[in-house]
């Protein structure tokens, strides 16, 4: 069951990016005024400690859960997923979006209709 390990440099980069993602997610949650438990409840997590885990840069928010995370944080799912892609899959993000301007800032997205 042992897996092929990535090279140390890439592993270090992955760890660093995961931590950045965690900090970004934590800031987004705090900006939304939610506790970790409240976010877990909104997103339907079975155990809220997963929120703390991800915020500490361990693991990632599953793709299938990113929409509900975005909604729970009051963000648009598209930019939310794009931001996470930048952290989780930087090379894929570069291939898809390099050279393109950032379309929408994830959390600054103005939704006057909801305000």
């Amino acid at each position: 069951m042992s897996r092929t390990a990535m090279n140390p440099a890439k592993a270090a980069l992955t760890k660093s990016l995961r931590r950045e993602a965690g900090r970004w997610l934590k800031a987004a949650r705090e900006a939304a005024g939610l506790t970790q438990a409240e976010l877990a409840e909104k997103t339907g997590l079975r155990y809220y400690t997963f929120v703390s885990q991800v915020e500490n840069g361990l693991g990632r928010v599953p793709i299938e859960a990113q929409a509900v995370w975005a909604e729970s944080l009051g963000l648009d799912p598209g930019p939310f997923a794009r931001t996470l892609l930048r952290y989780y899959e930087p090379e894929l993000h570069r291939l898809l979006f390099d050279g393109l301007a950032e379309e929408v800032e994830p959390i600054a997205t103005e939704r006057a209709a909801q305000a």
Partner: protein
Amino acid sequence: MGEILAFSPRPPASDWSANERGLLMLLTQQLAATYGEVDGVFGQTDSGDPWYVVTDANQDVLVHIARIDGQFVVHDAAVDMFHQVGSLWGALRQVLTSNIDDQGGVVVAFNPSSREAQSFLSLVIAVGLYLELRGVELGEAGRLNFENLPRVDDPAIEGVASKLIAALNLEADRTQDHPAASVAAGAVSGQVASAPPAKSVVVEGVAVETLAQGHDGLAPVQVSHLAQAEASPSPTPSASPDSAPQAEEAREGLYELTITGGGDIAAPGTGLTGAKYTMAGTSGDDVLVGTAEGDTIAAGAGDDYVDGGGAQKGQIDRIDGGAGDDRIVMNARVVASGSAGADTFLISANEPTSKAEMLLGVVLDYSAARGDHLAVLGRGQMTVVSTATVSDVLAVQGATLGEATASQVADVNTAVAGTRVGFDLNGDGAEDVFILLGGATTSNFKIGATIANDHAEVKVPLVGQASTADISGHAGDPPATTH
């Protein structure tokens, strides 16, 4: 009749005990045998519940174990199975069972009096004694539920037993650091934006005129007769000691405006979109109004009134009130420091029209003990409806605005913890706006408290031009502008 054991209530939320850590490290060793290089990370939630994660060399999470309200939850990512059990033993068994391949061994029925069971229990006792001799608490071990103890017919038993033996040599592992605990630190560092070429602007005895050509940024007034010169090695003249840091920033490429002979109003601006301005007040009671761009304003000593004047997308107004009882106008793009004195942070009670406007700004050094307080700017009032601890106020501001604003606060390179205070504006009890107060605690604000316009009025000259522009204001309004 057997001995009656005292009932042990569920422990409150607390970090992993030494016993639990030892068992979790055993699990890690077991998983290493299966997956190769693995890492174990201990952590705690903001409520204090502990969790433990094992990751492989690709940083993928293999197992997540947590203790929540005394119950142990296990998520085995390899097979995406979730379990909730009453003991850590049960949790470990769930993981090991799912990760140990069936090797076709002989299944032995459990018999408490059997040699295997006795050997296993002896190992448990040995580990307990070892830990006790080490001076660690045995509370968790004392609450072992025998229904959840590993069974002899459990395919994991062999691995557990061998690892328990290894537990007798846990000395080195028990001092493992907690990587998760230090992750948040330095969230802001390393994000300092590059500065434009050095250039300084010195203004003396400037005449304040109307803005000849307005723009969307609503720059309130325009200064004429700017004496602009390339930065020289000598420090730029400044009006107060507080402006010294700004001179340093000017050498780093910021525009600096030093207002001399002040005391009334100073309003810089050259129409250089995206430029960063620096204003320095005098030792008197100044009224400082920034531009519609991102400004750095150091009000210096005196009871000053400071309004950054707003900032464009991607910019902030960095305001330092300096000594004295200052009044600082707040908005989402303001990062303010009241510094010494009892400062008043003026916040708007207007309904926000966007998500970004829900943020009323960031104060880095709020101190209720020093006399700092909030007051409504203009009409209206607001009610405190929520308080929450925030680990990094600048990170939250950046997240709210969707911009790396923290990188523009060059004088702050560590996370500033504080409190997020939410307010209701329309009386429905729901939060409409919030402010981020570094240094404040949740106890500084009582839910239900009212924030009103209780600050002293400031006389701000209305600046206009001969035209049909209609300038009207009322007490408490921010400085009026026209263009």
